[in-house]
């Protein structure tokens, strides 16, 4: 990587290689394309939303690897439902 590249804030090619490989390998290993993963995410959001209100914007969803095994990781913030329920209860009284 040349000095000029660094000056221009260009990422070192080895770093790009590693990042790109990390993604490609996860998809190769799970045999899931990014599109399939996206549709899985949408299904998950739809299912959970039938029960509780979730913050889809703040949700994290993806594949991670631990050694040679893969896991699907979802971190889904729930919108503050209890308070609203409490309000509704107060109204009905």
């Amino acid at each position, binding site marked *: 990587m040349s000095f000029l590249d660094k000056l221009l804030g260009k990422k070192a090619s*080895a770093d790009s290689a590693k990042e790109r490989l*990390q993604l*490609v*390998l996860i998809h190769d290993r799970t045999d899931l394309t990014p599109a399939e993963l996206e549709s899985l995410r949408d299904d998950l959001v739809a299912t959970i939303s039938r029960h509780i209100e979730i913050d889809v914007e703040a949700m994290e969803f993806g594949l991670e690897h631990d050694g*040679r095994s893969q896991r699907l990781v979802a971190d889904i913030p729930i919108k503050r439902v209890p308070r609203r329920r409490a309000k509704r209860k107060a109204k009905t009284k």
Partner: protein
Amino acid sequence: MAAQVITITSGKGGVGKTTAVANIAVALAANGSKVVCIDGDIGLRNLDVILGLENRIVYDIVDIIEGRCRLKQAMIRDKKLPNLFLIPAAQTRDKNAVSASDMKRLAKDLYSECDYVLVDSPAGIERGFKNAIAPADRVIVVTNPEVSAVRDADRVIGILEAEGKGPGSLILNRLNPSMVKKNDMLSADDVLDLLAVDLVGIVPEDEGVIVGSNRGAPVAADPKSKAGQAFRNIARRITGEDVPFLDLESSGSLWERIQKLAGRN
């Protein structure tokens, strides 16, 4: 004496499988082991030229399998190392001439003949590859620090796991330390991080490897070659010795070493 059968494979072609087989074989034989190499790349025979034995071929692996010769007649003895042998691939046949059970039978017949059987697998993940791994007690995957080679290595490791051959272990070939230092090549740590398998050795890029193949004299026999040293270390690790990895990424010049000491690198 029961031989260990080691298959060397890669997925991607051109990463240095055949060179690795030849060099590991030479290094093992130079340390006194009796070694038989099998060229598993039917139709694309190459291990013979890398070992410099192309003029001595009379019979090949298909001749053994189809019963046209005895096993020992097809074992070509090396010119310099009397305990190194090659069973060449057939050049005018295709991979369908050999089956996985043929390979297993051949390896079994060699069990009592030597200490190590090294099988040079063809590139790819199809029949020739499946044949090559069928008799393996251990599989070594060769890769380069380059995206397509690492990706293919990962596929092969996945298949090895699925076939019950374990994840295999890794040789990282053609590492260019100065490119790694400039952050323009994946480092050994990067590749190990991505593939998550055991490492058997790191071989630096070395022009001597080409010179060696031009002459049919693998660099493992050249005491001055860095790649040769790496292959000799790999051979010792295969025999169970605990050999530290070469520090390829350390800087050569005094100034760079001073900078490193001063925490500049």
